[in-house]
């Protein structure tokens, strides 16, 4: 995968050690996106919104009932349903 180091300015949020996909990442914990396990055109659509490999993503509030959830990514907030978030694979624990 592409190695990128774009500073997303998420500050000193502890990285999650256990979460494998974005859907498993607890609220407020940072994860680094590894790859998007989605069809090419959908993956590109999400990449345009900042969901790029190497970028830091922090889950924020969710709608009542747990989904969709808002994610802080690349300077903005984007809501995704769980079915989409579970296809975004995080990098294994990494020092930020």
């Amino acid at each position, binding site marked *: 995968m592409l190695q990128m180091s774009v500073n997303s300015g998420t500050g000193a949020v502890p990285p999650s050690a256990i979460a494998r996909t974005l859907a498993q990442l607890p609220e407020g914990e940072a994860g680094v996106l590894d790859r998007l396990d989605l069809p090419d055109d959908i993956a*590109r659509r999400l990449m345009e919104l900042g969901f790029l490999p190497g970028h830091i993503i922090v889950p924020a509030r969710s709608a009542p*009932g747990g989904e969709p959830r808002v994610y802080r990514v690349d300077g903005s907030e984007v809501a995704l349903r769980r079915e989409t978030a579970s296809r975004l694979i995080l990098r294994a624990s990494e020092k930020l």
Partner: protein
Amino acid sequence: MSECHDCAGCAVAVAPPPLHNGARTHVVAIIGPPNSGKSTLFNRLTGLRQKVANFPGVTVEQRVGKAKMNGRTNHHEVVLVDLPGVYSLNPRSEDEQVTRDVLAGTMPGVPKPDALLLILDCTNLGRHLVLAAPILSLKLPTLVILNMADDLKSRGGHVDTAELANELGSPVALISAAKGQGVDKVFQFMEGTSAGTTSLAPPRMELPILQDIPRCRQWAHDVGTGAAYRAPAPPIWTRRLDSVFLHPIAGPLIFLMVVAGVFQTIFKGAKPLMDGLQDLIQSSGQGIEHILPPSIFRSLLVDGIWSGVGAVIVFLPQILLLFLFIGILEDSGYLARAALIADRTMSKFGLQGKSFIPLISAYACAVPAIMATRTIENKRDRLATILIAPFMTCSARLPVYTLIIAAFIADRPLLGRFFGMQAGALLGLYVLGFVAAIATARLLKSSILKSERVPFVLEMPPYRWPTLRSLSLRLVDRSKVFLHRAGTVILLVIVVLWVLENLPLKNGQPPEIANSFAGMIGKAVEPAIKPLGFNWKIGIGLISSIAARETIVGTLGTIYGKEGTSESEGLRNALRSDLTPGGAVALLVFFAFAMQCMSTIAVVRRETGGWKWPAIQFAYMTFLAYVCALITNQIVRSGIFT
């Protein structure tokens, strides 16, 4: 494109911009990502000198306006084209395809732009600058506009515009479109490009390969770094407000209060205004009646056109109030939160959060509801919402329901003293419409409008104060669109119906309605509607109600020679003696499902860019209405419930 010729709004898209004193028109396109303030800037630059239409052949809206140059250029008229909000020019959606075609000059009827205004949100410059790569590679004179300058400053961000201009090889303007700061620079740029004095400089930073998104993003980051860009602090107020509006308990409560408020206002709040307008139309109609000598033309003018067009214009207060609400919700940023909260429930019906507000609005009137679906970016979800909206029990159905229920259903207590059979019947009809809507949504989304491949993605804009300017322009815009329709398609239908009801002439006088063409049609269709329990008089009523549902009440009044209102005791008695209970209940069911509304058909045609979808919708709803009314009549007649 052939289907566009009858619509004057489309003429904007089809006709080339007019030549002005022999001078050439200078075309400037505004392009930017969603939520970058594109429309706000467009409104700033054009004010009321703008028109809304659809791009030929697609559902994407096109706004064109003349720039308020205030005598800055003597030789050229500057025409602005507002393009749909896009993140890239990769043609995956209709929006991106349209943007690409317009920029390439291959969109039929839209001239190739001479210059571009690229508007970006400078509070998130890193991500927004990605769009600069494909735009600058077009090699057109481009002004890079960094919008939200006030937000950037107040939240401690910074950008060196001169350095950014060097990096990009294009002029850069830091503005606040909402507050009007720096908009002068935009006018200066257009003045320069229209006079042909702007020269192109090659960008210092070599443009990246456009297909490689990570590399484009890296390029944007490098350009930002070169221009000493410092991202602003996170919007504190937005996070604070979200902790209330998206709170697990307070969030849904506030949401319900907002929805109830919208519903109450468009339903009840608009009533005095609508009544006032109704009185005005009626009394002015009577005024005309007094001035003109009695003739067939006076009848056409007063009874046909004046009251017919009036019946449509009466909905204007409701439409304006709804759009005022939607404007406030959308501009403030709450609409995105409401969509987020509603999404889980709506997804059960195969729809999404953004469909919720339009569907609630459809309880007042399907016309503004369908116009409000523009907030849904996903085309299939938008189409599904448009197609089911007319099932929601709109206020025009109420007079029909009231008349039939009062005539045929005894007001016996059903649940306690305050909830009787009549109220129960009315509630049942609301539920019936709702069930038909969600069943249709599920049907559509599991068949022709299946859209699993497009995931639900909703960007959460920061909260902002809506501006009076933007709200009022929105209202003016929607009123123009609505009144234009009232003056064209609907006018035509009204004239045709009037002719059917008043011809052939007998001794120079209009005939009894039974002997008119409408009466003949009513009798001709009687065999078809007899199994539903309807006679030829109801047939005439159904034909007249194609213009608008509530028309049937007035028509039945004329046919039975009674006062044509839903409170008319005489009309109730006449119906009771002429219609079987089965036929009456079947008529209610028929009205719950049938698409008896010219305005809705016209607005669906406009919003979907052709006659295909309104035709399918009309056929489907009429079929459903017929079959369900038939079943209802047979069941009631068989006496199961007596």
